[in-house]
């Protein structure tokens, strides 16, 4: 039994040897597999680079957008400030030798009340002006009354008097240079000028 086992083993071994000795050499498959894996690795690497680049681009885009958003918001703020400034600078006008606020100018003054209320640090100066028809020196007094009339309107609508200065230039600083009613009407005016707190303004 023991010999049979040995024989069996030997036979198996012969068969095995016989099998090894015959037929063509096997195709090398491993190199094939290596090329693929390199390519794959290369691709993966490339992909990861691309991904990285894309991420960078995305980050850049995000940064750009962020900057844009900041710029936009600044612009929007500036636009708001600019819009508020324009509103504030809207002049009001007067009849000849008069200093009473005309009904059609009350809206413009109400807007200024709102702006002053929305921007607590804002301080303004109102300058009163006249047309060239009156007396040169009397016009300083008249311009003073025009500036004061607008200030009184603002104060009577709740604005602290200390936030509004008044000056008069009489007929010394005309806006329109003509010598007709159209020019005179433009020159009989109050101008509104920011003297403090006007860097960033909120809408009323």
């Amino acid at each position, binding site marked *: 039994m023991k010999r049979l086992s040995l024989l069996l083993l030997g036979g198996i071994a012969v068969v095995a040897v016989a099998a090894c000795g015959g037929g063509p050499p096997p195709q090398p498959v491993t190199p094939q597999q290596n090329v693929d894996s390199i390519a794959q690795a290369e691709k993966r690497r490339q992909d990861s680079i691309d991904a990285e680049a894309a991420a960078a681009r995305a980050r850049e885009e995000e940064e750009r957008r962020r900057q844009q958003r900041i710029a936009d918001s600044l612009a929007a703020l500036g636009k708001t400030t600019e819009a508020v400034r324009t509103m504030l600078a809207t002049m009001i006008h007067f009849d000849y030798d008069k200093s009473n606020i005309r009904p059609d100018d009350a809206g413009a003054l109400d807007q200024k009340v709102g702006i002053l209320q929305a921007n607590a640090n804002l301080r303004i100066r109102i300058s009163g002006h006249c047309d060239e028809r009156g007396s040169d*020196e009397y016009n300083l007094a008249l311009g003073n009354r025009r500036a004061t009339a607008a200030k009184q309107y603002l104060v009577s609508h709740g604005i602290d008097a200390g936030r509004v200065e008044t*000056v008069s230039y009489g007929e010394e600083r005309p806006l329109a240079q003509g010598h007709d009613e159209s020019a005179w009407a433009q020159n009989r005016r109050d101008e509104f000028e920011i003297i403090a707190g006007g860097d960033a303004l909120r809408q009323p």
Partner: protein
Amino acid sequence: MTPVRRLDGWTVRGCVAAALLTFYPSSRLVAQDTSAIDRGVRIGIIYRPGVRPGLVVLPGTTPALDSARAIIARDLDYSDRFELITLPGGDSIRFSGAAPSSRVGRPPTGGGAAAGLNYPLYQALGADFAVGVALAGDTTVLAVHDITAGGVRREFRAVLPALKDPGFRMAVHRLADHVLEATLGTGGIAATRILFVMDGKVYVIDQDGTDRQLVSSSDHQAMSPAWAQDGRRFAYMEFWAGHGQLFIQPLGSGKRQPVVTTGQALDFTPAFSPDGKTLAFSRATEEGTDIYTVNVKDNCCLQRLTVGRFSDNLSPTYSPDGQRVAFVSTRPGLPQIYVMAADGTDQQLFAPFDYGVTGSSNAPDWSPDGQSVAFHRDVGGTLQVFVLDVRTRAVRQLTSLGRNEDPTWAPDSRHLAFVSDRSGYRQLWIIDLETGRIRPLLQQSGARLPAWSPRIPETASSTP
């Protein structure tokens, strides 16, 4: 010289004029006549419109003398008190002192005929007086000849600055004023200057339209120049950061001083009191515009003269005795001319007006003789110069052609400088109230707010 003879010659004309004056509505002229009598001045020689003494200004021989002669001739013409007579050409008419060099240095003598003056010719031409300038060494001698009397009435001597010296013209103007003193016994206006504003700066110009100079050199817009009565200083206002700052500046140096307590509000229209110690001005605040005074001698003591509350009070002008102040007040609704005592009491209407009819009245200026206040008033939408008789409170309109405003009295109280657009654009003009003669002072657009000086004292004549 025989004043009696002259007096006779003039009395006839004077009486006719006086008779006419009886029916003449202007009390101004009558008042002037009275004062002449009061002062004991020759009553026969009083100026009458249309009756002006003839006057010959003799030619000079050297360039400086001839320039002086030309300046004097124009000054005498602008005094509106003489009929200037132009001599026909030729050597036959020669003033001895102005003759060839051999005679230079010889002062003119009383013997006009002996000195080669052709009195009969001047008389034939209608001259009552002749004026000649000559050199005696360094001294210029001005001789005023009385043609009728046939001799020299007065001589004035002055060492004139060199022809190119900036003081030359003013020195000659002074000689011209001497002619008025010698012939009519009255002060002239030749040695005077007029401040005005152009393009936001203050300028000064001689009354004959020459020698214009910039006197405020700051970049700040200036307004409302006003003379001190000593003729050496003036005040004016400048805009400083929305405020009105007042300055006082000597005529010569240009070294101005800000007026204390001014510049914190809108301070404007300064006016010196006649003694020069006080400056009255208008101050615009949120309460309105009111008149204040400040002591500019001791730089102190701000005082408020008016309390307008619902009206504005502005543009003060002192009476020459310093006792009263005329000003503008809007208390009747429109600005009108008011008057008060210099301490602010006794405020009342000065220039009468028809409520609801008369237009705004502004810019009063009290005449140096105290008798009149000139101002301008809105007439049909344009401004005209008016004169208020202080004693009778009668108001008369002086101008009607174009727009006329901001009158300022000459020291003779019969000439006014004012702004008019009668020539198409606004410029400075001078009117003689008694002859109605009007001449342009400065042919330049944009000149305004004139202020006529007192007679300029000799030490203040030097230019900046």
